[in-house]
């Protein structure tokens, strides 16, 4: 760690790199150049920027990073991690180690006709037109320095193209593992999911590390849901205890599409999850559910936006936070209902549980409504475990630690229970419990 580097110095190792994929594609070269220069103009984010107020960005920009260039970790180590993660055996699986796809670890079951599941670098050679058409159209980098970095320097990521009418019956899972090295690495990655008309797909992004080294995962994900398409996106962030994680996920929905997003944060020293939905055509509906479970000195910022641009769209948002130790959680839920978006039905709820006196949470519901015939509801609460419920459990012989665990799990399970993939639910419950009470995992609920 040194004093904050100048933006130019901070990205010098990337600017010097001449091995990024897709070089020579004119549109890509132009985008990279523009994004690099935009990053240099913006500089790294400051806490006084409204959108970054609750992101703990200082330790990130003080760290000198090397570009992530892929890795070959000890075999047993990766397998142990993979065995713990959901979908072992059933899902289509892409495994990224230090930011680059490792083909031998990846698993593809028989794919439906026309479905493309590729790494970003392969997609640049095999389906560059798809990337040219969509890349950077939803996640704009003009105001977000970290998104500018993925636009400028992305080396890899997941690209999924689901053609019209194709239903992908198994979830597609991208697992991001980071190894420890001499130097902290930063991975700027780019995901793209294009679901054409009436298609259906589930994408999981799982970030996992079993060590306490410092690194940064900076992931930009763009999703387009075509007319009547149905998309589920699940993010599971279980980074190591000294890791940084910055995510910018932007989703555009066309007529009558349905998109459900689940964002589960248990890891990382400092993380930020930005999530934005543009409901650009009538009849689109979206679900934004999230859970952040923090302890120690973790900081996690959730910034969500639902932009109701068209009439007859529905959004339903529910985020829950559990904070222990000296951790700090934040939730910002902006709902923008534009003038044309009549008959909007938007609801938002944020509930937070503070398990210690030193834990903190900031919750900011922001509703901006410019249409008059709409239904918008929101609520936010923050509090401690219900004392009467604690006493009730304890009078039945359940000790204090377990009673806390049972109540906290019940609180968290409301979000986990709503995730439509059983393997993910089964994976998350013990992870969440272990975060709260290391070594005291409860038995499964019947």
């Amino acid at each position, binding site marked *: 760690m040194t004093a904050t580097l100048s933006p130019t110095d901070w990205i010098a190792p990337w600017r010097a790199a001449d091995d990024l994929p897709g070089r020579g594609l004119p549109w890509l070269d132009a985008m990279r150049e523009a994004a690099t220069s935009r990053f240099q103009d913006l500089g790294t984010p400051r806490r006084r920027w409204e959108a970054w107020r609750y992101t703990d960005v200082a330790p990130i920009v003080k760290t000198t990073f090397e570009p992530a260039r892929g890795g070959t970790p000890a075999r047993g180590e990766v397998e142990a991690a993979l065995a713990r993660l959901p979908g072992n055996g059933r899902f289509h699986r892409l495994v990224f180690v230090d930011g680059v796809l490792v083909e031998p670890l990846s698993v593809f079951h028989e794919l439906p006709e026309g479905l493309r599941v590729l790494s970003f670098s392969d997609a640049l050679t095999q389906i560059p037109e798809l990337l040219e058409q969509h890349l950077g159209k939803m996640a704009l980098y003009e105001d977000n320095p970290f998104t500018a970095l993925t636009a400028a320097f992305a080396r890899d990521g997941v690209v999924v193209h689901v053609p019209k009418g194709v239903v992908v019956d198994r979830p597609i899972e991208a697992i991001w593992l980071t190894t420890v090295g001499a130097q902290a690495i930063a991975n700027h990655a780019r995901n793209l999911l294009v679901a054409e008309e009436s298609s259906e797909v589930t994408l999981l992004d799982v970030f996992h590390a079993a060590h306490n080294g410092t690194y940064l995962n900076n992931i930009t994900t763009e999703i387009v849901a075509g007319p009547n398409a149905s998309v589920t996106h699940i993010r599971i962030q279980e980074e190591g205890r000294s890791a940084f994680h910055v995510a910018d996920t932007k989703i555009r929905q066309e007529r009558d599409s349905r998109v459900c997003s689940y964002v589960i944060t248990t890891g990382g020293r400092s993380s930020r999850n930005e999530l934005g939905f543009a409901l650009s055509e009538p009849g689109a509906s979206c679900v934004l559910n999230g859970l952040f479970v923090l302890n120690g000195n973790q900081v996690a910022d959730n910034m969500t936006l639902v932009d109701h641009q068209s009439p007859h769209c529905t959004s339903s948002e529910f985020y829950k936070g559990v904070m222990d130790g000296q951790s700090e959680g934040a939730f910002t839920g902006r709902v923008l209902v534009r003038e044309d978006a009549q008959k909007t039905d938007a609801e938002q709820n944020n509930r937070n549980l503070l398990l210690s006196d030193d834990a903190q949470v900031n919750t900011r519901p922001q509703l901006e409504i410019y249409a008059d015939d709409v239904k918008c509801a929101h609520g936010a609460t923050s509090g401690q475990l*219900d*004392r*009467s*419920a604690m*006493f*009730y*459990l*304890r*009078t*039945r*012989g*359940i*000790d*204090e630690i*377990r*009673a806390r665990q*049972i*109540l906290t*799990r*019940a*609180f968290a*399970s*409301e979000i986990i229970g709503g995730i439509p993939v059983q393997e993910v639910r089964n994976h998350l419950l013990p992870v969440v419990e272990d975060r709260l009470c290391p070594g005291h995992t409860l038995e499964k*609920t*019947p």
Partner: protein
Amino acid sequence: MLKITNLHAKVEGNQILNGIDLELEAGQVHALMGPNGSGKSTLAQVIAGRERFEVTEGDITLDGASILELAPEERACKGLFLGFQYPVEIPGVTNSYFLKAALNAQRKNRGEQELDAMEFLALLKEKAALMDMDPKFLNRSVNEGFSGGERKKNEILQMCILEPRLAILDETDSGLDIDALKVVANGVNTMRGEDRAILVVTHYQRLLEYIVPDKVHVLANGRIARTGDKSLAITLEEKGYGWIEEEAGSQA
């Protein structure tokens, strides 16, 4: 079994219990009656170990040993059960999970084998049938969306499963229709036995027609104002509590 001597307790600076003396032997059922606000629930919760009630004087012993320093769960493991006047809702925790966790925590504490899922389910079904409870309540969140009567039945169900040696039932009869009252009384009566003591806290004499007590205590102004046999309950039903409060007031 239970011996309370000169118990004083306060909550948030208000003195509520002003020197309670009460003794309950194994094999007995006592009733604790008294007007609203006289301190019945406070006493019940103090015995169970609720932290926000501060004991300022006196003692509570179970089998001769003081329990004042014990956590609520330790008291439960020693065989104490409190049926709540207002059972608490616990969203997200199913009734059956809750009961299994409780039973096995107590068994483990006593060095007994924990029940496995099959054994527990069989026990739960048997006791639910006794309480005339629809099995669907077992997979619902604890007390969430239960009617008043269902909550009270659920308390008795818990008692039947945990098989405490000392049960304190705080107004388990209030809010029950006559059929539910009979079911609850029947549940309590099946628990009567030589090794067990039960303290039935009630506001009305009605329950005592079904659960006939060995003794009746009347609480007024934070003290046991009178102790008698079951005819005292009938007198109270006829004359109300006014005369007892006056008596207690003139003594104070």
